[in-house]
């Protein structure tokens, strides 16, 4: 084997970002899910080349374009069918099926059921926003009764499907739920979904900011979400509430919410992810009558379809030898189809030119109207997050070090200016790296004998994420919250560093903003 093949490559989030412009509406919950997926995939240790995203049709189904992995944007509802074939033929792949409430539960409901029932080794992620978003706002199979949409102007009269209950009815071996607005929880559950062997089913409550923006408000509002969500942990009591003062008790077959002030802890249910009946109970707990159960609802190990099937093939081959496809073809009755002599040539109508002349009307304009509709009045603070630019933080001019600078000189400069972070530039003053206090602690202190002999390039973080100063503050918050970056360098169009913003700068600015007015 060549060295290249055996060399271990550590992937980062960047490796999973494709070159495609993401075309979801600004504020769509899909962005949060995409960011978390790109964050956790490097941690699963699976190579990009062994990862495949298969989707059907819908907003969520645009996912494969944005992942720098293999992907198929397939037929409406049919992603589980394609994925099943792929998983059987290529058992070494890590296959994700990305679907939505319409694609997965209506158009492709049957395919979804059978992929789960067969326990095909897939990670199925269903984005549930309870609306058809791509087709501009019709009620979906998960919309609540009474939902008023363009296709249900007097309110939906249909009983919705409960995705968790559907998956359990198909005896899913892994069933979980999370929400787009809770990134830590989402990341942890995505990792669990990836780990499980067999069909993993994850429902994500996802916000359609244009056509159904208030669907998950009670569950996503940071101020009271902990009173609305029951975070499940295997082996732990089902306790919830912002002050962890409520619990779930079973009264006969019916769960009930009780106050821990009045009920002893030993009466509170303990989560057992291997219990099938308990999974049904948790799946049946609908918000707002109960808190929404989030986390891993069921996790059991059963043989997966591909493995079982290939074992049968091997057994058959051991008993009867490898098959011969030609022989199989010739085994049954054969006949020859004669060519008809008087076959008429059909006239082909020119289609393309007709299409060119068709006016583009209707839906696009409707969508534009919807987008441009005055949004609900944002609070001044929300407005500040998206309209104030990073330039308004008046970012500090960064201390720059040439890339051949020694560690000794760099650290002297940092201490002289009393700063925790410098940027590293090349001969043309373009930013090539960032070096922080953490790097000193993590890679230098007590590990490097002669600081003067070492150059900064070997110790810095190369090619850090950068921002331009005309971007909104929310963009910096986005990167800081997703990645925990404590310093974000700002650069101009030619890549020259122009500033640096830290956690403290952003929080300090926001904390004082609007107060003085």
């Amino acid at each position, binding site marked *: 084997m060549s060295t290249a093949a055996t060399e271990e490559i550590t992937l980062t989030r960047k490796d999973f970002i494709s070159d495609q412009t993401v075309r979801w509406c600004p504020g769509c919950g899909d962005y949060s899910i995409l960011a978390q997926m790109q964050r956790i995939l490097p941690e699963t240790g699976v190579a990009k080349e062994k990862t495949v995203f298969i989707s059907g049709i819908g907003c969520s189904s645009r996912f494969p374009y944005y992942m720098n992995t293999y992907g198929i944007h397939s037929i409406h509802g049919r992603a589980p069918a394609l994925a099943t074939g792929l998983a059987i033929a290529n058992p070494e792949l890590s296959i994700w099926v990305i679907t939505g409430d319409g694609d997965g539960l209506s158009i492709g409901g049957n395919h979804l059921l059978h992929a789960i029932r067969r326990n095909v080794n897939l990670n199925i992620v269903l984005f549930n926003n309870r609306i058809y978003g791509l087709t501009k706002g019709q009620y979906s199979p998960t919309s609540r009764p009474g939902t008023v949409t363009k296709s249900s102007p007097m309110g939906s009269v249909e009983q919705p499907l409960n995705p968790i209950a559907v998956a359990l009815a198909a005896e899913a071996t892994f069933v979980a739920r999370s929400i*787009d607005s809770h990134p830590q929880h989402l990341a942890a559950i995505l990792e669990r979904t990836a780990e499980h062997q067999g069909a993993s089913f994850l429902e994500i409550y996802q916000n359609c900011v244009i056509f159904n923006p208030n669907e998950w408000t009670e569950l996503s509002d940071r101020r009271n979400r902990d009173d609305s969500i029951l975070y499940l942990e295997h082996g732990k009591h089902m306790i919830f509430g912002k002050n962890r003062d409520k619990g779930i008790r079973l009264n006969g077959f019916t769960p009930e919410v009780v106050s821990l002030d009045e009920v002893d802890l030993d009466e509170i249910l303990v989560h057992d992810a291997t219990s099938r009946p308990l999974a049904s109970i948790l799946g049946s707990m609908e918000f707002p009558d109960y808190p929404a159960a989030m986390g891993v609802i069921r996790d059991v190990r059963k043989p997966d379809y591909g493995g079982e099937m290939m074992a049968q093939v091997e057994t058959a081959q051991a008993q009867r030898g490898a098959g011969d496809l030609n022989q199989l073809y010739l085994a049954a009755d054969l006949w020859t189809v004669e060519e008809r002599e008087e076959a008429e040539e059909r006239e082909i109508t020119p289609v393309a030119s007709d299409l060119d002349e068709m006016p583009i009307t209707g839906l696009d304009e409707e969508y534009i109207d919807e987008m441009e509709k005055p949004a609900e009045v944002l609070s001044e603070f929300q407005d500040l997050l998206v309209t104030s630019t990073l330039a308004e933080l008046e970012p500090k001019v960064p201390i720059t070090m040439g890339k051949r600078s020694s560690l000794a000189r760099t650290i002297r400069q940092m201490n002289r200016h009393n700063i925790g972070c410098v940027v590293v530039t090349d001969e043309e003053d373009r930013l090539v790296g960032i070096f922080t206090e953490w790097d000193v602690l993590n890679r230098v202190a007590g590990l490097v004998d002669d600081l003067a002999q070492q150059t900064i390039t070997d110790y810095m973080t190369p090619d850090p994420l950068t921002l331009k100063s005309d971007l909104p503050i929310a963009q910096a918050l986005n990167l800081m919250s997703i990645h925990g970056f404590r310093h974000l360098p700002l650069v101009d169009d030619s890549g020259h560093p122009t500033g640096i913003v830290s956690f403290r700068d952003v929080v300090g600015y926001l904390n004082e903003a609007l107060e003085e007015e």
Partner: protein
Amino acid sequence: MTLQNDLKSELVSHLVVSGFSQVAAGTPVRNTLARMRADRQVVCLVVDGDMSAAVRLVGIFTERDVMRKVIDVPGMLDRPVEEVMTPDPITIGPDASAADALRLMDENHVRNLPVVDRSGRLLGIMAHQAIIQFLADRYPVEVLNRPIDPEQFPRKAEGG
């Protein structure tokens, strides 16, 4: 609505506070650094007493101290951590509001506040990161759901 208003109604115990490393007083600086690297933590709390039983917080040692007091001071690696830590750090209780925590940090020019409950248990480190996380969760439409790279344009047609 200002951030101040948001933070007044949010308790420190409701925030996602940061983790920390912990060493006993007397631990050499070298071992303290190794502990922090292994834990991937930028803050180390120095405690007195038996590690398993009740401990008393005697100091805090952070990456800042590494820069200021360790990295270019010869021989410091083998000295006990007490010589470079900040003794008797300012702490905050889990029932304090996030606004109070932030004010305490600003007034005292500290970046990390150990969160300690009434019985002396060390619960975590309050830092600016907790506020960043709070903002992301509180305003997901504005903060979380943003294009990954706002300036990215495709080199080729979609799906091509």
